[in-house]
């Protein structure tokens, strides 16, 4: 490819900007990430860097002309709780919830917690283009449009290859839970390896 840099050069840190509040803009999607996302962990189960996950989800939202707000959750690593919590804070009622290993869910505030709009349970099958589509779909739901659900893939042999690693990552993420600590709004600070992050 002729791209000037490869994706792996990029870095991201999530800078806390304050407590996570309820949004008022109807044109926003909340992206809610788990305790260890882009912190303790830096990439998904199949080594997609979190910076790329975040860039693509945000790009998918931005391309639809919708704004995004990122929230980090500390007190749970349960995807439904993260995504639903995010949706309740979202001005549009739509949120994308993400775990460090890549498992992702689009949620809506009026749905029961254990339901969802779209769920991507097979973290080993999620790559950058899928994350872009997830962001795009979330933004389209926020606009009241009817996006075609992102095609889900399936692989019977994912179990022998990834099941145990997924469990391990899940346990590690649980370790990062800080019970009782409220969610915070964060700002992504993107940078390049070897260069100072642009503030």
């Amino acid at each position, binding site marked *: 490819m002729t*791209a000037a840099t490869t994706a792996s050069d990029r870095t991201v840190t999530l800078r806390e900007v304050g407590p996570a509040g309820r949004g008022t803009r109807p044109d926003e999607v909340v992206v809610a990430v788990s305790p260890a996302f882009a912190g303790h962990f830096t990439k998904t189960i199949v080594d997609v860097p979190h910076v790329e996950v975040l860039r693509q989800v945000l790009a998918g939202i931005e391309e639809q002309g919708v704004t995004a707000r990122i929230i980090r959750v500390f007190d749970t690593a349960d995807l439904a709780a993260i995504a639903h919590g995010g949706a309740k804070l979202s001005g549009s009622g739509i949120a994308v919830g993400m775990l460090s290993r890549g498992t992702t869910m689009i949620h809506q505030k009026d749905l029961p917690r254990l339901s969802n709009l779209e769920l991507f349970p097979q973290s080993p099958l999620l790559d950058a283009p899928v994350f872009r589509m997830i962001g795009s779909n979330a933004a389209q739901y926020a606009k009241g449009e009817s996006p075609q659900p992102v095609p889900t893939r399936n692989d019977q042999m994912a179990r022998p290859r990834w099941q145990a690693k997924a469990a391990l990552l899940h346990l590690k993420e649980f370790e990062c839970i800080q019970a009782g600590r409220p969610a915070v709004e964060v700002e992504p600070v993107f940078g390049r390896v070897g260069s100072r992050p642009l503030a």
Partner: protein
Amino acid sequence: MTPVDPGRSPARLVVGVDIGNSTTEACLAVVAPEGSITHLATDLTRTTGVKGTPDNTEGALKAIRGALARAGRSAGQVETVLLNEATPVISGLAMETITETIITESTMIGHNPTTPGGEGLGVGTTRSIGELGEQQPGEPVVCVVPHGWDFDDVAATLNAAVAAGVDVVAAILAGDDAVLVTNRLERPIPVVDEVSAVEKVPLGMLAAVEVAAPGRTIRTLSNSYGLATVFELDPVQTRQVSPVARALTGNRSAVVVRTPTGDVTDRRIPVGELVLHGAGKTLRVDVDAGAEAIMEVVGRAQPLDDARGEPGTHVGGMLAQVRDTMADVMDIAGQPDVPVSEIAIRDVLAVDTFVPAEVRGGLAGEVALENAVALAAMVRTSRSRMQLVADLVSEGLGAAAEIGGVEGEMAVGGALTTPGVDRPIAVLDLGGGSTDAALLTREGECTAVHVAGAGELVTKLIDSELALGDRDVAEGVKWFPLGKVESFFHLRHEDGTVEFVDQPLSPHVFARVVVLTPDGPAPVPTRHGLDHVRRVRREAKRRVFVVNALRALRQVAPGGNLRALEFVVLLGGSALDFEIPDMIADALAPHGIVCGTGNVLGTEGPRNAVASGLVRAHAALLAEEARCRSR
């Protein structure tokens, strides 16, 4: 109804059985000697085999047994089974696409991406983003970005080029990145994205990129004189590019590249002739002339004796197949052969439609709505195998079975049991494959016609015009009203009313256009809005049922004059539709006709007309006999 008096000469248990194209209906009744009728039960089942053939026996027996079970009677008590004189009707459907849009030399990009970037018009020479560094300052450039470029890198590269003095006026992107890139540019430019075949964009050519503000459409590239201005065209050249302008009308974004002989053409696809025999004439019409022309010729060949299409075309194939199926159906061992002349196409309905099709030579999967003609045809023979069915039913049930009357007459008879109607009465049976009409005059004369095209054609039109590719979904769109799920707790009906629900709706219908089935809302997989889907649905119904209602009624109306009709009763499965009866009634109202959905026996709705008509006719016969005896 008069109660049966068992003391007098015995009342008779009779069953009227109507074998229709799709359903078989039974009407069980006790007929007293003087002709009074006590209705006991009705039943309805799927018709087995093609109507009018021995395969019908199974369904007929099933309907009879079903009615008997409901009434708690046994087969042994039945005196007579009355069957309708039904002639086989076989219908077929075919569609021909008759136009094709072709782009040559990659002249134009008109796929209308949902999220283009920037706004305004940029005219310059196409250059690949990789070559921007070598570009001399001054000359306006339209930057072409292939697959694999990240949006941040594209923006950075364009900003750097502009800073170096390169006059970048617009960009064409492979990925869905237009908003992302424009948001990051220091100098805003129009950007068109999602051009999947971006590598085919000719480089080094003069090109114009236009993006309109959200909610608006382009003004320059969709205007022939706008193109002439941008590309400094002479009148001859302007005439040549006018198809380009037309193709881009209504878009929010577009790209036009000026190449030596580039062109957009709207080609007609020859799909051969339709040859119609009738009224002692042989008339020919090109299928690609469209429905209006075809129907005009069909009108001149009435009554139609046969029709044939070009071998190798969909229409030709369909017409041949319909005929072959009929020949197979009538070919029964031990029965006299049916002359080929009797197996002929007796009606044709052509409907103009359109099908979304990918444009040949397009760079971004452009889709054009191509014109198409849908054709329904019908074969009918006067040779019935009903006597065979009657024999088999008699054998299977252990009761006498006879042909009790002709279908159209019986339908009228049954329809007369609808409260509030009187002679002259016409019935319209809105079926799946054909639309049938029958008229009973004040004097008791009955005439009947069958015309091609009914419910199945409607489904096909909906399916292709909405590009659903799924007959079942199209059926759903046809049968049920639409709604839009606006939140988990409310949906907006197609009439604009809002309905709130207590239980949250399922996530799979969230924010979707849905059909409101009895089992709850079901999503319609389309990007079109509710209004568009509704329009397509109603148009399809109008073009088939309203057109056919008028066509069929004119054929039975004395002198073809609709004003001579007084009561029109709608029967058949499609009479249960939630809007077709109203649409037909509206169309007939100007002719002073009372039109509505039948309510046979005051209880059965538009069902069971023929079956109960058979019982009525039988009762009348018995009464007549009784009168003769008593004299």
